[in-house]
């Protein structure tokens, strides 16, 4: 294949590179997008549509492109749905079209076109129902959707930057730059986000003059001035959503997920100058490869030196088509005809457009007035066009290979929309603009309906000056730039060429979702007439396209079908993100291990080094078991639990929530929070305390230690630490403001090592400083003593969660590892959380499985703690009759009737009389090495007595086990081991 001649365009260089598309190699130039390179190589077929699998080519040149979506790369690192018009080519890039099998040329699913009626709007509500949707579901799911997900998402780091500024400008076209310059001159800190890789917007094509210079020269000077004034210009960056006044902008240089940056910008004021998007006109088979937007053809010519076709027919409803025709002809393409929907008198005599038309006619271009394109002819691509006069007369064919369409421009209002801005119909555009500026957000330029250069510049300048004033900048914005460019387009509304009803099935409004005029008729016939309902019923304007080329067009067609005005119909609201963004970019640093932050104890590294199998429990990483003790959690936990009961062990309890409550009113405050009184405690004692929610349900339990008259340490469940801190802080603020109580989180200030088992006291005496000999010997159950060890503070609390003799050692984190290792050397072995659970279930102690937020103190056997007259939080609602009904749950123990079978937490408990009505459920279950059988705790209806036999039914895991109800303490009910 001989090298094609170099193309010259404003965005491409002279360096060659090569890339692959659908398995074939093509040459391209540096700066080419996939779209421009393929066009230059004569490739027109770029994809197939989502529903009907019709052949599709390029419609546009930018983010409005609905058809040319490619897969980039190969599995497992495939990137799907990349717009060819934005993808900057790199050497060796491998691209593939989507939505076709086996190939783009021959797609078997295109046979579906024959069943067009079966797949009209809302088909899934009306068809494929018998015998059942499932019969068809898997096939339809395989055919549905755009693109395939990558199997591996190892994409590089996504940078994040937070920035605050005075004025944020979206769009660096004439209006945006005028606004930014005005604001910067007035002293505001300005940030500009521009989606394209270069600034300028329409100035790229503008032949006019600004302030006595060419548009290009003005652009260069303005950018330099902005830089000198400290403005920050972010190119290839699109504002994708309004996150409540903080705008998220996504930078994707090269149009591919790779080295992306997510900006979080908080401006004081905003100017939205993102321009206006060209929209097509609807006619039959307007989706054929070769039908493109008029402005897109000019972009391909100017930027990439690429001709979109050889023989063009232009179809429009405004003056600018004539200037475009001249520019395209000058670019070497033959313009066969211009089809103007307006009457012959629409062109003003002596106007530039009139003069141009005359010269085009003289050059042999057929200029038709009051005509419309009825259909595009040609199966795999445009081969001819059928045109007809609008007021009677026969149609005729004109041979061509490209139809360039322009039905006007719709302001890009997406940015303001997401803030709920209202829209107003603007007759000169036959489209919508923002009705009012909302709280310091202003639209400017063509986004505000100013399609002429002079008006856009003035509008932008005014918006920028006002934005600077909103941001309290005090300088002077200077004088607005004066410009004159292409005159007003003098558009006359025209959305759809006439067609026979049968042909409406091939008049496409939304190319990405295959929505036709016939679909709109179906929606209307079925009673969906509001534009938002029509959008959802027909899928018009959903997906990555979000109505960019179809929303206003669809509304205009709907207005025609309903016999209403476009103003009355309105347009559907587009949804963020404004541009598609990968989940990877949204996730930011929350990927892999960092998906959720982890908290680690001071002993973390020791656990990791010694086979501790860490698992997240809430935010904390805690060892579930130690791998040296067993090959799996089940065996290891049993070995560890057995070790504790026979000899002794140590477990890391540092995650225990610890709140230090201090001040003269500390005791009274705790009396309010907890069910039982803290004020009656002696210094040096701890007490098991329970606190309630406002509605009387048990919230949390733990030991409270009285450190001094005015100082307490309240411990909470490990997973509850920050929740209980907030709870305490809440009531302190609500009822104890200005009183004498403070709450301080000391969870991380104390490492906790729990030593439990028959040998633990001896180990402590061996390890701790001699000053501890007497206090350890004296400590009664629930007593604690403060002192020091190895030069650091140490608190020893005699309390047990295992039912064994046990001591909790609270030490400073810096000394934790040394103390832990000393205890190991003294004969205690490390055990993990799984073993803790076995031991506590044997003893009938409770965790969040029983304190599940739906149990009262009465349910949990804590009636003794509820004393009349202790007016604590939640007490008032405890006396409700509903809390004392016979069907309220009660905490019980369970054992298998055969002494062997396994039953699991979550199993439902039923009686023989009513096998399908649960009377309760199993809250915790463990295999007990002490008693050699499965044991459980359960919440069971009060009216089921001890000794009752029930079935533990577990349909999800497939087991039914006969169990009988016992007291909720399986081991050492008299607590002799613990208190001895």
């Amino acid at each position, binding site marked *: 294949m001989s090298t094609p001649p170099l193309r010259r365009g404003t965005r491409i260089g002279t360096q060659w590179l090569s890339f692959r598309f659908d398995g074939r190699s093509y040459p391209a130039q540096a700066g080419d997008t996939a779209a421009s390179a393929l066009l230059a190589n004569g490739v027109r077929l770029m994809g197939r549509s989502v529903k009907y699998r019709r052949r599709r080519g390029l419609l546009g040149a930018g983010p409005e492109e609905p058809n040319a979506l490619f897969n980039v790369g190969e599995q497992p690192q495939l990137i799907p749905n990349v717009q060819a018009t934005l993808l900057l080519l790199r050497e060796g890039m491998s691209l593939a079209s989507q939505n076709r099998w086996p190939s783009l040329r021959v797609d078997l699913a295109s046979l579906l076109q024959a069943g067009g009626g079966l797949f009209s709007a809302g088909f899934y509500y009306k068809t494929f129902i018998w015998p059942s949707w499932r019969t068809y579901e898997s096939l339809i799911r395989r055919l549905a959707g755009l693109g395939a997900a990558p199997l591996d998402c190892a994409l590089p780091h996504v940078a*994040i930057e937070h*920035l605050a500024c005075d004025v944020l400008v979206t769009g660096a076209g004439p209006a945006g730059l005028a606004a930014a310059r005005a604001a910067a001159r007035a002293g505001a800190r300005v940030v500009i986000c521009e989606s394209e890789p270069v600034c300028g917007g329409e100035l790229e094509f503008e032949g006019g003059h600004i302030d006595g210079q060419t548009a290009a020269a003005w652009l260069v000077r303005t950018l330099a001035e902005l830089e000198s004034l400290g403005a920050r210009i972010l190119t290839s960056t699109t504002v994708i959503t309004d996150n409540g006044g903080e705008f998220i902008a996504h930078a994707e240089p090269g149009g591919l997920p790779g080295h992306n940056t997510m900006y979080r910008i908080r401006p004081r004021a905003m100017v939205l100058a993102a321009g206006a998007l060209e929209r097509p006109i609807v006619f039959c088979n307007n989706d054929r490869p070769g039908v493109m937007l008029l402005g897109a053809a000019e972009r391909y010519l100017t930027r990439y030196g690429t001709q979109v076709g050889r023989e063009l027919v232009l179809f429009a409803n405004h003056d600018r088509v004539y200037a475009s025709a001249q520019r395209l002809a000058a670019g070497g393409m033959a313009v066969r005809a211009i089809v103007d929907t307006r009457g012959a008198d629409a062109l003003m005599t002596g106007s530039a457009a009139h003069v141009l038309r005359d010269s085009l006619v003289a050059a042999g271009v057929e200029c038709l007035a009051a005509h419309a394109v009825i259909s595009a002819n040609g199966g795999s691509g445009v081969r001819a066009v059928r045109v007809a006069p609008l007021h009677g007369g026969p149609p005729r064919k004109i041979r061509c290979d490209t139809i360039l369409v322009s039905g006007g421009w719709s302001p890009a209002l997406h940015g303001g929309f997401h803030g709920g801005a209202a829209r107003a119909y603007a007759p000169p555009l036959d489209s919508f603009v923002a009705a009012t500026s909302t709280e310091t957000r202003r639209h400017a330029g063509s986004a505000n309906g100013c399609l002429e250069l002079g008006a856009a510049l003035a509008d932008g300048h005014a918006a920028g000056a006002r934005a600077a004033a909103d941001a309290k900048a005090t300088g002077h914005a200077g004088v607005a730039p004066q410009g004159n460019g292409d005159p007003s387009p003098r558009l006359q509304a025209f959305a759809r060429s006439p067609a026979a009803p049968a042909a409406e099935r091939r008049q496409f409004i939304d190319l990405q979702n295959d929505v036709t005029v016939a679909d709109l008729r179906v929606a209307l016939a079925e009673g969906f007439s509001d534009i938002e309902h029509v959008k959802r019923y027909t899928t018009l304007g959903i997906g990555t396209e979000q109505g960019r080329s179809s929303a206003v067009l669809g509304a205009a067609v709907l207005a025609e079908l309903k016999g209403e005005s476009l103003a009355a119909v309105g347009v559907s609201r587009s949804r963020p993100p404004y541009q598609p963004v990968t989940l990877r970019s949204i996730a930011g*640093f929350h990927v892999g291990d960092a998906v959720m932050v982890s908290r680690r*104890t001071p002993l973390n590294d020791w656990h990791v080094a010694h086979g501790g199998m860490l698992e997240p429990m809430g935010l904390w990483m805690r060892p579930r078991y130690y791998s040296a003790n067993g090959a799996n959690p089940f065996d290891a936990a049993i070995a560890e639990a057995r070790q504790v009961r026979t000899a002794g062990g140590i477990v890391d309890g540092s995650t225990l929530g610890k709140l230090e409550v201090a001040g003269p009113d500390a005791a009274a405050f705790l009396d309010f929070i907890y069910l039982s009184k803290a004020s009656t405690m002696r210094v040096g004692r701890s007490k098991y305390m329970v606190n309630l929610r406002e509605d009387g349900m048990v919230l949390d339990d733990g030991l409270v230690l009285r450190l001094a008259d005015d100082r307490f340490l309240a411990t909470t469940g490990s997973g509850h630490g920050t929740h209980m801190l907030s709870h305490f802080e809440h009531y302190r603020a609500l009822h104890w403001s200005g009183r004498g109580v*403070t709450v301080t989180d000391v969870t*991380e*200030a104390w490492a906790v090592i729990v030593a439990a088992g028959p040998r633990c006291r001896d180990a402590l005496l061996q390890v701790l400083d001699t000053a501890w000999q007497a206090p350890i010997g004296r400590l009664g159950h629930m007593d604690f003593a403060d002192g020091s060890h190895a030069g650091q503070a140490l608190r020893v609390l005699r309390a047990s969660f295992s039912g064994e003799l046990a001591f909790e050692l609270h030490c400073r984190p810096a000394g934790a590892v040394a103390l832990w290792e000393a205890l190991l050397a003294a004969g205690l072995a490390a055990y993990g959380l799984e073993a803790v659970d076995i031991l506590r279930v044997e003893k009938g102690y409770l965790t969040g499985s029983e304190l599940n937020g739906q149990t009262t103190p009465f349910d949990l056997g804590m009636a003794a703690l509820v004393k009349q007259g202790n007016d604590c939080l939640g007490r008032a609602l405890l006396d409700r009759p509903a809390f004392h009904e016979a069907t309220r749950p009660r905490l019980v123990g369970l054992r298998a009737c055969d002494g062997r079978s396994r039953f699991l937490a979550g199993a439902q408990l039923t009686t023989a009389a009513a096998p399908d009505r649960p009377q309760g459920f199993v809250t915790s279950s463990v295999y007990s090495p002490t008693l050699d059988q499965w044991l459980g705790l359960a919440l069971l209806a009060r009216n089921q007595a001890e000794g009752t036999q029930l079935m533990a039914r577990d349909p999800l895991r497939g087991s039914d086990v006969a169990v009988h109800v016992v007291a909720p303490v399986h081991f050492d009910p008299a607590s002799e081991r613990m208190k001895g």
Partner: protein
Amino acid sequence: MQTQSSRCSIDRQAHGRVLEFAAFSWPQPGDAMVGWPSVAGAVRRDALNRAILLHFAPGRVLAPDPSAATEALLDAAAAQGVGSGIDVTGKWEHYIIAGPDAARLLACAIEPGAVLENRECAAVTLFDCPAVIARTHAGFELWLQSSYSADFLATAERFRAALQRT
């Protein structure tokens, strides 16, 4: 742990005792004690520019490595019934983020200019980790809640390395 580069470094600082002083109410009634950082976000520094008292939450002051004089001040405040002092040694870890890119690194997590506007220290969440940040002549310093430090450093290092590349 230390991560060094010419443009940005995160260095752990050693320290001994750390205290928090919690006032019973805020704003405090009556005259503030001499030397007390009564304004929200105020930081008192010693002659070597080390932060000695940081008012980082309503009525809550962080006192890292308190000198005898600082301890006396806190004891006096407790005696006057202003509030309670709590020994929180081990809860906070101290880091200094220095270098020309220090602000850029923080900007990956928060907007440091906005957060430290009108104040010398602020309680923030950086990469999901609770911390107190303050400006220093070298860049920024932060006190991080210690159980979060491994995760914080891993994430901060990823961002620091990426900034180095740009």
